[in-house]
């Protein structure tokens, strides 16, 4: 927000001026009012602990994170490029597997990946789109550049916080929005609905689109119902659906009704017990057959998870080059693949300097932050890596950028990342904004909501306001 000289960066001026003009205690009061609003609005997620589950708000720090138009332009084009390449990759590995034959990526990394679904081979998703909704995690390094930290192509969550945070922020700082030229985010639900309608089975003119949720006990339940409400469509659970005569139908008070497009917020494993996990009570038996027969569309397509496997991630720059013939616009964070023997010996020798991530976890679970870990924890990971190298990658602790954050009565710098959301329908759309997650604990690098993280509204500016130069 500030330049090294201590002046507000261009674009931050209206906000900085406002904050300077506030009476002592007023900023804190506004912060508390914002948190109170979130609690009453029930904008919470569920944390599963040892005993009962607890509902918590995802703390919102009311000092926004500001992204300049220039930075955003690069992020936007970089994400478009990346999603396009990942979609080509998915299409390829579930059909001809040219990339494996050309040895761009070792075949065993793909074929033995836990998220690779052999059963999806030969699937032809409507319009050739596999990853309709993606949330890509970016970080800004010490050099000021944005790097891709993680791809999320399964059921990325968090966009509801982006929309609700913005609503709370408009209440908190109404005047700043008039002068700052912050790009709006509220048309996301409309765009999402268009993306989903676009993939409806052929011949269906007025498709019935639904959101499929695991139910009220899922940690992201608020988001599922929020998105359904904003799009004006039904929120269903597996038990509301049945496959009858090859069609997916939902049980209504007036009989069965055909469903054409499903925005599913359940993992592959829980989609269809007759195909994936037979012990799952959540899924709909026969769903995958109906999908294969083109009677219903799924977003995202089953099998997309392999593209955000953290080992595959290390190869994404090469995928971009291979499929698009372009250099990546957004670089990866340097990544060591433990499967590779040279990388592995480096990793094992430098555990205290690296972050170790399992290939298939999300939410910050199962990670080792080397510099903050004890010797025992590091030894434990050493064993894990030696036992199953395919499952681990390592990255240097990125010097994550820090932004001013309210701590008690003062500002302190806290580490942040940024998750923009990308929709792939008729074309590729990047929501101007995204979820800025902030590690509220001093010095912490972990921003996940389940691990004590909070969020900030992300202001992408459309132009530099005149008065911002000073």
């Amino acid at each position, binding site marked *: 927000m500030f330049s090294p000289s201590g002046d507000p960066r261009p674009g931050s001026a209206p906000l900085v001026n406002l904050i300077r003009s506030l009476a002592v205690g007023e900023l804190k009061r506004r912060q508390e009012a914002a948190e109170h609003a979130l609690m*009453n609005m029930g904008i919470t997620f569920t944390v599963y602990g040892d005993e009962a589950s607890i509902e918590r708000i995802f703390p919102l720090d009311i000092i926004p994170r500001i992204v300049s138009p220039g930075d955003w332009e690069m992020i936007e084009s970089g994400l478009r490029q990346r999603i396009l390449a990942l979609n080509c990759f998915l299409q390829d590995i579930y059909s001809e597997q040219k990339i494996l034959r050309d040895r761009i990526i070792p075949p065993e990394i793909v074929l033995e990946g836990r998220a690779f679904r052999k059963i999806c081979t030969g699937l032809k998703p409507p319009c050739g789109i596999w990853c309709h909704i993606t949330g890509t995690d970016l970080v800004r390094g010490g050099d000021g550049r944005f790097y891709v930290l993680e791809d999320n192509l399964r059921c990325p969550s968090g966009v509801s916080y982006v929309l609700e945070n913005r609503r709370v922020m408009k209440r908190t700082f109404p005047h700043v929005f008039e002068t700052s030229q912050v790009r709006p985010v509220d048309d996301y639900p409309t765009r999402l609905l268009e993306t989903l309608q676009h993939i409806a089975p052929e011949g269906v003119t007025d498709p019935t689109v639904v959101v499929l949720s695991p139910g009220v006990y899922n940690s992201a*339940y608020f988001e599922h*119902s929020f998105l359904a*409400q904003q799009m004006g469509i*039904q929120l269903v659970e597996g038990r509301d659906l*049945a496959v009858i005569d090859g069609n997916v139908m939902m049980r209504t008070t007036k009989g069965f009704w055909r469903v054409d497009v499903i925005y599913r917020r359940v993992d592959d494993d829980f989609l269809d017990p007759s195909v994936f996990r037979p012990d799952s009570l959540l899924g709909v038996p026969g769903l995958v057959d109906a999908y294969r027969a083109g009677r219903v569309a799924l977003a995202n397509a089953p099998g997309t998870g392999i593209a955000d496997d953290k080992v595959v991630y290390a190869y994404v720059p090469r995928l971009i080059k291979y499929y698009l013939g372009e250099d990546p616009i957004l670089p990866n964070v340097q990544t060591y693949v433990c499967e590779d023997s040279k990388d592995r010996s480096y990793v094992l020798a430098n555990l205290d300097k690296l972050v170790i991530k399992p290939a298939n976890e999300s939410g910050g679970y199962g990670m080792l932050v080397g510099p903050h870990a004890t010797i025992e924890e590091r030894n434990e990971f050493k064993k894990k890596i030696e036992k199953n190298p395919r499952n681990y990658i390592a990255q240097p602790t990125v010097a994550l950028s820090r932004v001013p954050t309210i701590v008690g009565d003062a500002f302190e710098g806290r580490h942040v990342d940024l998750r923009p959301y990308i929709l792939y329908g008729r074309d590729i759309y990047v929501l101007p904004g995204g979820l800025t997650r902030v590690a509220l604990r001093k010095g912490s690098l972990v921003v996940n909501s389940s691990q004590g993280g909070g969020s900030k509204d992300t202001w992408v500016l459309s132009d530099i306001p005149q008065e911002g130069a000073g």
Partner: protein
Amino acid sequence: MDQQPQERGMLSRVAESIYWMGRYIERAENIARLIDVNLYLNLDLPSDKTARQWGPLVRVTGDETLFTKQYGDPTEQQVIHFLTFDPGYPNSIANCLQAARENARSIREIISSEMWEQINSTFLFFKDSKGGLESMDSPYSFFRRVRMSCHLFSGLIESTMSHGEAWHFAKLGQFLERADKTSRILDMKYYIILPSIDDIDSPYDNIQWSALLKSASALEMYRKRWNRIDSRQVADFLILNREFPRAIHYCLVHAERSLHAISGSQVWGFSNSAEKLLGQLRSELDYAHIDDIIRTGLHEFLDGLQSRLNQVGSGIDETYFSHLVPPADG
């Protein structure tokens, strides 16, 4: 592609949640009102009679066995705790509010944001006071707040939600619950009166009938209709009055209207078991006279009414919530 049916109903699961949300809010409000009235009543009664006052409250809930097993004799403090905070009692206000809120949470894309925020903040307020009555300045203002929060929620159902199928399910739940609760409140006098015949027509009898009317929010409206408190007229008012919104007949008429609005069938017929059972019950009351009811026994009448209301509930469940099993090998 196959043709869709003419009209799309709502999800059965959602209909069920809305129905129960309506029932639980109504139930919470009724219990809060019962306790509130009883607290006031005690101020007017000699102390040897106040002790007797709390037992009937548990009895009208129909959950006396559960109470006795856990608490023994009904004292004021224990009854209030049982009905208000006890996490082990499924119908305590705490559990009603939690169930109403859980139901609302599972359908928050269907109900209005105002409804959701109201039920959520009520739940949070209640949760903050789980320290119990001892930690409160005034139990009166606490129960009043619970009641008013429930009323506000009912008002939001009326004014912020389209009066379509979902709304009718909420109303159906509310009116059936209310009919049941009014019948139980009226029945309470049966339990209070029997132990001591001497008290009949004493000043205490009068106080008790007034309290009973107050428990049904009916005292003022009753007074406008009949000036004097008279047991026969109180029963007539609470069972058969055509205008008072907590009178049983009124509740049944409106529940039936919603039931027919949901199915789209005519009110002078039936298209499912719930409509048949409720239609029969309502038309019996259409032509009932209070003297007939008293002759057959007020308590017996109310008892029968409650079990028939339960059958209506089962009929609704079969017709709308747990129907539609997909054909085998679908």
